[in-house]
């Protein structure tokens, strides 16, 4: 039950931040590929940097003991990414 409550709270923050950053808009998503609005890139890089420091910091402190690292399948990740980008630029999600 607590698990699902946390999911709702985290999800709420997730949706809130995406909306406030404007990433729910078609133009914000497609314009990163046209280099006219880099909000998506700024958002992603900022999240990555903060997340990396936070995750590995908490691991160093012993708070996070089990870390699942997404396995790498070079072809799958690349081909999937290439297909994904087409959909992203078309739909603007």
């Amino acid at each position, binding site marked *: 039950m607590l*698990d*699902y409550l*946390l*999911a*709702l709270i*985290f*999800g*709420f*923050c*997730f*949706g809130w*931040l*995406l909306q*406030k*950053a*404007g*990433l*729910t808009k*078609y*133009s914000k998503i*497609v314009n*990163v*590929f*046209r280099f006219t609005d880099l909000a998506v890139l*700024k*958002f992603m*890089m*900022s*999240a*990555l940097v*903060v*997340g*990396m420091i*936070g*995750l*590995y910091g*908490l691991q160093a402190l012993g708070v*996070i003991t089990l*870390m699942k*690292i*997404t*396995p*790498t*399948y*070079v072809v799958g*990740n690349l*081909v*999937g*990414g*290439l*297909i*994904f*980008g*087409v*959909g*992203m*630029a*078309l*739909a603007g*999600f």
Partner: protein
Amino acid sequence: MNAIIRALRKEEWSPIWSGAGLGIVAVLIVALSHQAIGASGSFENIGGLILKAIAPDLVEKNLYFKFVMPPGITWQVILLVGAFFGAFAASKLSGTFKLDPVPDPQWKRVFGPSRWKRWVAAFVGGIILEYGAGIAGGCTSGLAIAGGIALAPAAFIFIAGMFVSGIVTAMILYGSKF
């Protein structure tokens, strides 16, 4: 207090600070829930559930549904429900919430006001995007962010692929307007 209310009602937050907030959320999800942030997987969980109701045999025999994305109301689906309410609350508070079949002025300018054109593009784009995410093992949140913060090479290969094809697709769609 007033400053907080003003901030909550502000229409647009800096993407850098919002992104930093998402980074914190992504870390808390790992630390407190032992899960990973994600969005595209939830649609597959729900899709599997619907397909299971229509054609249970197809889901039974499908390796993807069996091992990668089990149908059902998973933790990620609840996360997505939360995201819906979060985005709804954010737009309501900034007073920008409205129901509009073609909400984006840029789309209207470039591709015209036809709602069917926009809806078909969104739907077809969504299918392509979900298919790609299925092959790659995640989307912008589930692989690029969740994997990226754990320094998984998969995430950075995915981001590279996504930008290459995104830029090419935008070039083709926009033509001389690129």
